């Protein structure tokens, strides 16, 4: 166990629990829900779980690179949301539905 160089008001473990819980929720949503919107939301949850993880360790290691990375992840998440929502819109226009289990034309 690495000794924390600075005193943290909230120990790093808690960040990890929160992050893991959020990630599990995201994964569960991603795998169980059929609505494309809900899946995109779940994706955001997972990304933010990662962000919390990064922020927590950034503080723990006194290293700002982790927080830098979070900014990048948020920017990319925004871009991904834009593209994802555009795809969802296009899909809906074509198929009049957003239930992904109906989109199985790529099956072998």
């Amino acid at each position, binding site marked *: 166990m690495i000794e924390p160089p600075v005193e943290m008001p909230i120990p790093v473990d808690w960040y990890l629990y929160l992050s893991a819980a959020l990630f599990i929720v995201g994964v569960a949503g*991603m795998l169980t829900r059929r609505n494309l919107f809900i*899946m995109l939301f779940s994706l955001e949850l997972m990304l933010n779980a990662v962000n919390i993880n990064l922020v927590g360790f950034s503080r723990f290691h006194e290293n700002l690179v982790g927080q830098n990375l979070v900014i990048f992840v948020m920017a990319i998440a925004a871009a991904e949301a834009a593209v994802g929502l555009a795809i969802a819109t296009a899909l809906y226009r074509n198929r009049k539905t957003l239930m*992904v*289990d109906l*989109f*199985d*034309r*790529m*099956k*072998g």
Partner: protein
Amino acid sequence: MENYIWLIPLLPFLAFLVTLLFGKWWIKESAHWLPILAMLGSFGLSLAAFIQIRGAEEPVVVELWRWFSVGSFQVPMSLQMDQLSAVMCLVVSGIGLLIFIYSKGYMHGDTGYYRFFAFMSLFAFSMLTLVLAGNYLLLYFGWEAVGLCSYYLIGFFYHKPEAAAAGKKAFIVNRIGDFGFGLGVMLIFVTFGTLDYVGVFEQVEAGAFGEATLIAIALLLFMGAMGKSAQFPLHVWLPDAMEGPTPVSALIHAATMVTAGVYLVARSAVIFASAPAALLVVGAIGTFTAIFAAIIGICQKDIKKVLAYSTVSQLGYMFMALGVGAWAIAIFHLMTHAFFKALLFLGAGSVIHAMGGEQDMDKMGGLRKRIPATYYTLVAGALALSGIFPFAGFWSKDDILGATWRDGKYLIWAVGLIAAFITAFYTFRMIFMTFFGKPRMDKETEKHIHESPWSMIVPLVVLAIGALLAGFLGMPGKLGAIQSFLDPVFAPADHILGIHEHTLAAIDYVLMVVSVLVAMLGIVLAWFMYVRRTYLPAFVGRKVRPVYKVVYNKFYVDEFYAATVVRLSVDGSRWLWKNFDEKIIDGAVNGTAWLWQRAGAVVRPLQTGRVQNYLLGIFIGLFVIATVVVFV
């Protein structure tokens, strides 16, 4: 000499290129000039080389450039001029020149006029390369190239199915011989480490090689010679080759290309002399072919077929001479034969020309007065072929028979003598059926009979003079100019065989008289049967009907091949097609496709097309990796 002999084959090649490229659109009806001039040039240069090489002890070898250079496999592009090459060059370019001139008249108006002259030039190039080659590989190149030209020219009238088939037959039969020849060349390289004549012969003379190897080499080379020179059992292509235009028959299938086999054996005389068993095979095959083809010649009705079988028979004589080590005499007969056989073919062509394309002698007769120039020249050729004193054939054929006698091969001598009798008989049968008796053609054809143009008559006359005088070059014994001229080439082989220069004895004169008498007898018999008692041939034919049928059908050799070799390969190929190609080859290909199709069908359901199934896979994978990283 070194600086010009490469021009001898090159000139016809240039004529070929220009004629082929520009013939169709530009040169057209004057396509004959360039090839004729090229042949004239080659002939002049050959003559110059012939004069310069006289008496030279060593051959002149000119290395133009290095052809192959792979490790120890070194083959130069080299030309070799010695007395043998000089004689062959003179024959090829000289007879070739006359036949080119003749073709100007004979082929006039043909749609393939330029094509004809182009391929004749290519043939001249190939043949001159063949005889000038300084090593076996270049010889092989020329050998295959003349075969190719022969194929082109036999199938010259390619719209005729028989001509196309005859071309293919010639090519395929020659392949069998050339297969042996190719193996022989390889064996020479493996044994001697070089393909140059000079190098190979030096090593053979030194005598460091087992006789079995030499016999194998000699027999393989002779296999090639049998194919090219139409010796039994590979003779079947030559009579069919008469489908080609008559000048082609004269130049390629009588005077020059078919003698390439004789040239090959004579060139390799040292090898053959060191392998007496192979030499015996050469003599036996030659003798058998000589009489076999002569017998078939008796019953042929097509004027060109008679001459074709006569060519096969005369080539047999040449191999007979080679078989008893009479190299120079074989070359001498090759030369005189080139003269009189070219003459006979061109004369026959002139007859066919006069008859408007008719070749069946049953529909000729009485042409003597109508086409006298053709008649007289053709009779000169026939006398030469029959071996009547003092025509060329007398000297050379008599020399051959004398050589077999001197060698103690009395059986060969006797068979040769009988063949000479038959030769005289069928030759004059042809003359009498064509020129004597009552005309048997229809009225329309008879009205159109005309003498050929000067361009056809002049070569005939020149060749007739040759047929009359060429024999004096090779008088027997010490008098023979050609024998002493060729001596430097053949002295090593003669030395190995222990043949010494021979002086004329009383027996030689007796043999001469005997062979002339036998030939005369043949002519008289022909005269009796075909002029005097014209009912006799049909009568005899009825009396010995089965024999006649067998001979008329050429001893059923073609049918035999059709029933055995051809049938076997066709059936075998069909069996392989059905069983090997369709079942194994196609089966392997289709089986591979089937296997992957089945395998695909098994794993295809994994690809559901649903994004969440894939995500599940990703997460499971992630989980496994994380577990491994953390706990292992």
